[in-house]
């Protein structure tokens, strides 16, 4: 029972309190680049949830059944980034074969995920904080999934704000990316309110 509570806490913490974008500053490039309209933000978010969860699963196995037995834990950075690159490629091929409609919808966002630092961030954070704990596999998967959900929430909220900002009268030098950051700042203040929750 105690463990279920702990797992739920991890999920809530990664979604709201330690939101990857607004608190940990991970994945800002797609956050600013792809958040111009709600549809593409949602598509990107879904792709990220999928890849992050898979990454959490695969890196756990790679670390425990490949790196540890051969005593090459120090190669984890190289191993993780190559895994993620291969994984994204694989996911892309599978989706293209099995669900062409989804593939069309995700379009260019899938390959872009490889260089999304939030994905490598999940793998590294899992390794630093969760490996070695009880039920570490389930916790890692939950943290990966939660990080993706938090990413999607922040993306979609931001896209909604930016759709409005397009018609607002913004001073010339602040148009585009700068005003998006200022909006993100206000959003982050709102999310600070969650920090008392856990």
């Amino acid at each position, binding site marked *: 029972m105690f463990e279920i509570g702990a797992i739920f806490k991890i999920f809530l913490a990664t979604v709201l309190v330690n939101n990857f974008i*607004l*608190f*940990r*500053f*991970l*994945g*800002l*490039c797609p956050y*600013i680049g792809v958040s111009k309209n709600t549809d593409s933000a949602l598509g990107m978010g879904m792709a990220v949830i999928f890849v992050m969860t898979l990454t959490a699963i695969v890196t756990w196995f790679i670390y425990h059944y490949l790196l540890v037995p051969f005593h090459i834990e*120090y*190669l984890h*950075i*190289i191993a993780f*980034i*190559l895994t993620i*690159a291969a994984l994204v490629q694989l996911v892309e091929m599978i989706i293209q074969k099995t669900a062409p409609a989804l593939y069309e919808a995700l379009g260019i966002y899938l390959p872009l995920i490889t*260089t*999304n*630092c939030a994905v*490598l*961030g999940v793998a*590294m*954070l899992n390794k*630093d904080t969760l490996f070695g704990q009880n039920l570490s596999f389930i916790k890692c998967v939950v943290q990966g999934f939660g990080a993706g959900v938090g990413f999607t929430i922040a993306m979609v909220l931001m896209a909604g704000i930016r759709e409005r900002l397009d018609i607002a009268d913004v*001073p*010339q*030098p*602040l148009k585009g*990316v*700068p*005003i*998006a*950051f*200022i909006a*993100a*700042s*206000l959003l*982050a*203040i709102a*999310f*600070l309110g969650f920090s008392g929750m856990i």
Partner: protein
Amino acid sequence: MKVWKEFKKGFIHENPTFVLTLGLCPSLATSSSLKNALGMGLSTTAVLLASNITISLISLLVRRTNTTEQVHKIRIPLYIVVIASFVTVVDFVMKGYFPALSKELGVFIPLIVVNCIILGRAEVFASKNSVLLSICDALGMGLGFTCALMLLASVRELIGAGQLFGLSVFGEGYKPALIFVLAPGAFLTIGLLMGLFKFIGSRKA
């Protein structure tokens, strides 16, 4: 002359953070204090320098052996492996010699691997230019990135903690606005500084 041009472009005209908007995540995450910003900027510069040299040497070899066609397809994984190797080295150096700083920067040292500045310079510059020019490019871009981080950090540390490099500036009476050290202050500062860079750029043109 050309060497100087490649070196100085990274500071203002093609500043990676404010103008090219590359490498935003580490810029915001590690600019809460000047000490962290300097550490992060110099680690990134070291990785960038090493990867630019290696990749321009590799592409020299590729051109000599006439294998451009075959290598072109696998160039991205190739770059990533080179970069990841150097990041591993820097990670160990930081852990060994600056354990406190390494702990504060935390996950952002390994995340230099996915810093778009490094892969971007490899693809755009180092793979097409000589070793000497690649070194200048790496130093210019790396130090430009460091300056941008220091600028962000000095604003944030000054307002958010009333300090610079940990030394008190305003004296006892100053009540620090803690929010500038936290996430919202980072977003606000970078938004305003980007606007300022754009304003200066438009005035010049």
